[in-house]
């Protein structure tokens, strides 16, 4: 088969985007194709993990032979389609739409996605501000997630994430018109709702309306994108056996230059195994890292009931002596080992090896084994 001068095989479905032919992958939207082939089309309500809704109107494109501008997130890439994002009409639309968004938001919007879209559009920032009429949830005492309604653009990403990914539907877009806001049932606290504090709503918010609360121990509120000086360290969460990938955001100057983890961000959707999704533990429970009560060495409790520090050698000897002592008094099967499905497979292997080969008992179990 011959290829055209852009390397596409003759006969494969193709569309033209801004004058350039691209092969189509089955079922993809024009927005997805643009992303895949390197054309930037701003979008604020779309996410690869969610159904497209075409609500924010940021991704509108011009279709040859079409009428009004069309949302590219909802437009299926089909053979022969001719799409333009570089026309005067699309330019005027982007500029005006982003100017309207900015006029409805405070001066400093922390969200990178919205900032980028507005800058890309060349939107004027001097339109008179509208006073917001959207309700927040000020009495919500949950420790991790805050909602600043004045920053909300009602894109619905957070509520759809809660429905479609987390599956708990704790929040909804409530009310109508300019009052539309994100709410729980009658503004109850997230703690009283079905919310699992997974923080996905914070992750997907394009403006920073959904954001982390200041950590209990310290640190001023760091809004998304507001701290470019933070390092990003990709690592594996150690709270359970799934092995979710997460990005530690590290302030290199913290802890007297040793570095301090100040927050956790999701890696991009598509990152295996967790597709950018995290849970409350991995995303929010990071304070143990620098907590003053964090154990820094093994501890052995004395006769007086108090803990004292010990070396690893001493501690291991002490544990082994205690376990062997039980076996001396009650026989090998006097001991049982219970592990956890939240440990990794490797850790569980070691536990059963310890039980069988070191302590000569088959009494070993963990909750995923049945």
């Amino acid at each position, binding site marked *: 088969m011959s290829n055209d001068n852009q390397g596409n095989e003759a006969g494969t479905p193709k569309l033209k985007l801004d004058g350039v032919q691209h092969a189509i992958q089955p079922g993809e939207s024009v927005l997805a194709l643009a992303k895949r082939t390197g054309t930037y089309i701003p979008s604020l309500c779309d996410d690869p993990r969610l159904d497209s*809704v*075409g*609500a*924010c*109107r940021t991704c*509108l494109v011009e279709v040859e032979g079409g009428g*009004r*501008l069309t*949302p590219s997130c*909802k437009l299926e890439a089909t053979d022969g389609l001719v799409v333009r994002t570089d026309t005067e*009409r699309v330019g*005027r*639309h982007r500029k*005006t*739409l982003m*100017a*309207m*968004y900015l*006029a*409805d938001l405070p001066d400093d919007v922390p969200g990178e996605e919205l900032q980028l879209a507005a800058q890309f559009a060349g939107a004027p920032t001097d*339109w008179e501000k*509208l006073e917001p*009429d959207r309700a927040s949830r000020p009495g919500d005492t949950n420790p991790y997630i805050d909602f600043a309604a004045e920053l909300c*653009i*009602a894109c619905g990403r957070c509520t759809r994430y809660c429905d479609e990914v987390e599956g*708990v*539907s*704790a*929040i*909804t*877009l*409530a*009310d*109508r*018109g*300019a*009052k*539309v806001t994100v*709410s*729980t*049932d*009658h503004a109850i606290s997230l703690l009283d*709702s*079905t919310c699992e504090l997974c923080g996905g709503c914070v992750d997907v918010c394009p403006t920073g309306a959904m954001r982390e609360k200041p950590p209990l121990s310290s640190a001023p509120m760091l809004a998304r994108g507001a701290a470019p000086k933070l390092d990003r360290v990709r690592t594996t969460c150690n709270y359970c056996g799934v092995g979710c990938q997460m990005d530690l955001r590290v302030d290199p100057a913290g802890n007297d230059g040793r570095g301090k983890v100040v927050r956790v961000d999701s890696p991009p959707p598509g990152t295996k195994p967790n597709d950018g999704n995290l849970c409350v533990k991995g995303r929010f429970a990071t304070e143990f890292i620098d907590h003053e009560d964090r154990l820094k060495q093994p501890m052995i409790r004395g006769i007086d009931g108090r803990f004292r520090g010990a070396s690893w050698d001493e501690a291991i000897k002490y544990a082994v002596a205690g376990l062997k002592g039980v076996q001396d008094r009650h026989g090998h099967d006097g001991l049982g080992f219970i592990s956890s499905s939240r440990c990794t497979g490797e850790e569980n292997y070691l536990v059963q090896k310890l039980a069988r080969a070191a302590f000569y008992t088959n009494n070993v179990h963990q909750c995923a084994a049945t």
Partner: protein
Amino acid sequence: MVHDRRADVPHLLQEHGGLHPDAVRAVSRATGVAQAEVYGVGSFFHLLNEPGVQLRVCTGLSCRLRGADEVIEKAIAAGIQTRACSCLAACDLPVAVLRGRTMLHGVDGHAMDSAGTDVNGIAAPAVVPGHIGPTDRGEEDFGIGLHLPQQPAGAMLARAQTMGPAAIIDEIKTSGLQGRGGAGFPAFFKWRAVNGNDSSVKYVVLNADEGEPGTFKDREVLLRRPDLVLEGLAIAAWTVGAQDIYCYLRGEFDGPKAALQAAIAKAGDAYGDLTFHLHDGQGAYICGEETALIEALEGKQGKPRNKPPYPTDKGLWQKPTLVHNVETIACVPGIIRSGGQWFADLGRTGPGSKLYALSGHVAQPGTYELPLGVSLDELVAHAGGYIGELKAFCPGGASAGFLPAHERTRPLDFKALREVDTFLGSAGVVVLNESVDMAWAARELLAFFEAETCGQCAPCRIGTRMLRVKADQWLTARGGGGENDALGLVDDIAWEMFEGSICGLGHAAAAPLTSAMKYFPEEFGA
């Protein structure tokens, strides 16, 4: 066919007295829908989201011109929980109010005085059929014939069944029948699309969510000729292959709903195994948009869907659905009786006769069935003439904006109005005389769209509010003598609303201001 229990959420919330925590919990348990989602639905609809409100007073233009403000003042002073509300489709019988779920009309200061502090003491009649005309001819002269006696159920359905779907669709095509809810889309096109779809499940939906300010003709059809509505729906369902017909009536239409229920009871088993499901709207103009209506039927907030796909392809519960306005479907039995050509010939510059809802500064507001294409002057002649000197008029509801007096001879049809960048829409014709301040009138209509925008998309959610705020700023600054540039951004905002909004509300909402500025520049300081 039984559907998921989500569809029950709105009416269950209504039965539990509206949006309050106990209601949400109970409805969530009964339907299996998450509490937050139940709350979201209740918060969207204004007849649900404020359970304590006792009285809603219409603030449409015609009611405002007849003293709605005084009614509101007196109600509040009397300690009655009162709200202003959007057009109640009783512009011919001002001032209209909603007490609970009952509509009253002709309310004035006296009626409020005699009520004292008791909202149930307001001495005003429930909405009854309004004035209609002309009434001096028979069924061969009208597509509908509001004044004519109701016909027994099933006769035209039987005739249609002998013709067969292809012939029926052909007659509808010949008739030139266009959608009379606002869009003016050729009806046969939708019938053919749904008929041609091979899905085993299809639906017919009646759009009786009449809410376009200035419009009340669907109310008249439901009150006077519900027989035609049922017969038309039955013929449509048989033709396209549907067995379930969903009638969405706006929640304020207690009278029309009763009339429709009576007609269904009277029809007995004339419609065989067709099932009519009546659904009450819960207060949201946007549910007049067909996809928002479908969302509400499914038990969700009434937020319009992106099109494509169109309802004829994927509509109610994603099945092929034929959605029709009340007046449109009421034209169908006549077309079956006397043929498509007969219907087309009733028109003047376009096919068919047309119901025009006329209100404002005319002697006899009411619903007039006339050949499509009459001019404003002819229409008003039927209504006893103008009150005062004609200044401006809305040819087709709030969404069509204003035209100046010098367009009084232009045909009011689906084509000629497009030539001057407006449209016939719902044919809710509001007449304004020289006493009306056009900037005030424009601001009133902007406030309507601001109150009714669903909020899903930024061009409309932000644009409607921005325009109303700027109109208010302009009105405040007017006469101050200095620079008044509050309206400088209107052009850009209106352009974006027209280009970027998901649905017709956003596309049209700037029209009252842009048309007023265009035709009455002197009133805007130019």
